């Protein structure tokens, strides 16, 4: 109860400007942090020699054995050694009672034989062993499509924003924010050695949607606050943008929490009980992306928009007017800048 009151008070103070975080004022610092993060996200995969690509990208055969009593890895390895495959299998216990065996691609006969051996070795029924073989082009198809989708979405999203907000600067700022999200999420993926599967690639695309969505909400407030900034001398443009970010901060926090909770629930329950699979891969990408997306809107996209506009002569003049008024009104206060 008291926590809620505090949070409401926090919201009130952010709304009135009584409490204010210098999102715009310290923007150079955020840019540096973002630049370093992006650079690291590019360098880490290079240093590590790429991503941990899923079987869909490498090509290979995969077996999943469910309802296993004894989850010994050696059982699976022995079972396969009987088949002359020439492939080195990776046997993993991916979830309680579930084993996954991955190896280079097998032909039909070998697949059937491996399957038979696994059924015998783990003492399960025919239904409980699934096999899955994937050509290396399958993953490339998916990522090729994803790249197309990425550019189409970025283009249409940029046009949509430029039309809705009637300024290309907001659109540009939003897109820069979007790229930061993409790179950093990819970097985190590489750093943590998460497996990149087609589902993860799709998760990335969904993050774009989420990130842009979040930016639209914050920018809507920015636009509202700065609509008649040219006739106002109450706050400078940068201060108005900063106020808008602060005013929507509670909403941003609430939104990210609410968006992350179900995703996290899928991620943890899925990962704990199911192991690798569509649900886990999707939710993993989303989990990382939602958090990065919110941060990027607040720290990069919105301050960048302010930065882009600050060079405009009108905005410069307005800022000067605000400063003049302040100097005239209270000569006593030296440290006048709110932002």
């Amino acid at each position, binding site marked *: 109860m008291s926590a809620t009151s505090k949070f409401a008070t926090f919201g009130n103070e952010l709304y009135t400007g*009584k409490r204010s975080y210098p999102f715009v004022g310290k923007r150079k610092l955020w840019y540096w942090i973002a630049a370093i993060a992006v650079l690291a996200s590019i360098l880490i995969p290079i240093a590590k020699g790429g991503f941990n690509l899923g079987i869909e990208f490498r090509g290979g055969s995969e077996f999943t054995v469910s309802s296993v009593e004894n989850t010994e890895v050696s059982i699976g390895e022995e079972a396969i050694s009987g088949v002359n495959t020439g492939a080195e299998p990776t046997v993993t216990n991916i979830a309680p009672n579930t084993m996954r065996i991955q190896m280079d691609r097998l032909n039909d006969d070998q697949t059937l034989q491996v399957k038979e051996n696994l059924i015998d070795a783990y003492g399960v029924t025919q239904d409980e062993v699934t096999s899955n073989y994937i050509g290396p082009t399958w993953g490339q198809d998916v990522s090729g*499509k994803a790249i197309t989708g990425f550019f189409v979405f970025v283009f249409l999203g940029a046009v949509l924003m430029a039309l809705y907000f009637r300024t290309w600067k907001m659109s540009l700022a939003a897109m820069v924010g979007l790229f930061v999200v993409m790179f950093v999420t990819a970097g985190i993926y590489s750093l943590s050695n998460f497996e990149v599967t087609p589902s993860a690639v799709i998760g990335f695309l969904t993050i774009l949607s989420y990130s842009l969505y979040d930016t639209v909400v914050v920018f809507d407030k920015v636009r*509202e606050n700065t609509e008649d900034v040219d006739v106002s001398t109450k706050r400078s443009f940068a201060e108005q943008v900063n106020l808008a970010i602060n005013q929507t901060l509670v909403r941003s926090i609430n939104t990210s*929490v609410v968006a992350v909770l179900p995703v996290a629930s899928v991620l943890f329950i899925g990962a704990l009980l199911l192991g690798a699979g569509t649900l886990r891969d999707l939710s993993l990408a989303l989990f990382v992306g939602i958090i990065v997306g919110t941060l990027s809107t607040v720290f990069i996209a919105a301050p960048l928009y302010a930065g882009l506009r600050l060079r405009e002569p009108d905005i410069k003049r307005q800022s000067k007017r605000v400063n003049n008024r302040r100097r005239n009104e209270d000569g006593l206060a030296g440290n006048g800048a709110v932002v």
Partner: protein
Amino acid sequence: MSRKSPVTAARRTLIWLGVIFAALALTLGGGTMWGEASWTPKLALDLEGGTQMILAPKVQGGGEEITQEQLDQAVSIIRQRVDGSGVSEAEITTQSGRNVVVSLPGIPDSDTRDLIQASAQMEFRPVLMRAPAPAAETPTPKDQLTTPTAKPTNGSDLNWVTPELQQKFEKLDCTDPKALEPAAEPADPDKPMISCEPDTGSKYILGPVAVPGTDIESADFGLRSNSQGQTLNEWAVNIDFNGDGTEKFKEVTTRLYSFGQQDPRNQFAIVLDGTVISAPTTNAVIPDGKPSISGSFTEDSAAALAEQLKYGALPISFEIQSEQQISATLGADQLRLGLISGVIGLALVAVYSMFQYRMLGLVTIVSLVVAGVLTYLAIAILGWTQNYRLSLAGVAGLIVAIGQTADSFIVYFERIRDELRDGRNMVSAVENGWRRAKQTVLASKAVNLLAAVVLFFVAVGSVRGFAFTLGLTAIADLIVVFLFTHPTMQLLAKTKFFGGGHRWSGLDPSLLDVVPIYRGAGRLREPSTAAVDANKGRAGAKPISARNKPASKEAERRLTIAERRKAEGAEPNVYAGSDSAPKEENN
């Protein structure tokens, strides 16, 4: 809407929502009773169990590009093969104009797989024997079976017919669907075969291949014209053979024409994938390689045959690019856990909303439930009408959508709070907050929809399901926030609990600093009746409780010059006089 009272408008809007619900429920209910619909959504392969194969087409003997038409033709041929092999509910689709996706329940045996991968064989074979549909005749006694007396000299030579072949022919019942099952092995082009014509139920013994389908240059259809060049009201299919084909076809028509119209050997059969698709009689020797087939064609059947013939010119085989076998147990587990985690996620969201927004959180939860029911009905109806199947990725999409749906309410509630902070009473805060939130919600949902559409169109495989549910829930969210959440808020604003700003309502004015404590140039105003007077006339504003006093004292104590200026800056100026014009016009 502005002239109507909010309550009337709200009631009217809620009735509309009721109408939509009733319409959806009745559609589905009617579909369940009289149609094929079911109350539960159809499940995709990954949840139901089965096999999904992604096939890459390969043109035999050439690097020719495959057109969408040919791919569509290939899909229909694979569908015929799969249906013919007795697998029900197979789903065959093309993907990105390049691949064919075959989804089958269960695990196909190697025969079925070979069948799917095999190229379609089109060939022209001379007819040796023919029998009409019913097979109830008595078999020819053993001693009367024709026995070859010599080595066959040409394709129409009856010496091809061995006793075994004749017996098999007599046993064959072409009205039995089993007989139409495509053979796993394509027939040997140099040997005779027996075959059915599914359209008529006739059965045939056919000689070796006279002209292979690859010799077809092109095929089309049109109205036949007679020897005087007059166009007749009769559809015909025109074939154009290449050089080799012309030679071979000339040879075969010369031979067939000589048999005379009554002899079955006058016919030749066009065989696609082992079944006879047409068996025209020969009326003339065709020396130019441009035969025309006429008969009782309709425009559609002529078009269909021409398409099949064209396909014959380009035999496509398929290579399995990816094959995934999904056991039903694994799928059911995944669905169960997916749903459990969805419910847990929903519960967490509910707890968080209640924590943040008190009873308003309840509005969020009910709105989410309404959105959920709406989405469920839509998915079930789409499953019935469009054969939409819910996949695991689709379930993931639904769970992800919980957060995005709840966000619309958060944007709205925060707006209402902002309006309350500006000193509005509850009713006008709801109206004004909505006017602003509406715009934001529309713009941001447009982004969601855009993403869903882009994802859907570039999607591969299961991603489509994901994109589809994302788009569907974005629409459901819009419907709910417009037709449920907002009118509900309008009604609630009139209640004592919310309108009066009960401390548990989530809209407690004292919590939201509704009464400006600092006013004008640093002047401190007592948070007392004077402040309430300012809000009088706008019904419902709650008098400042004693509870608020310590808070204001505390604030007073902390007041510094800089803070005072900030507070001053935040004061009504930008949002001048809470009900004044400029703000209203921003919309």
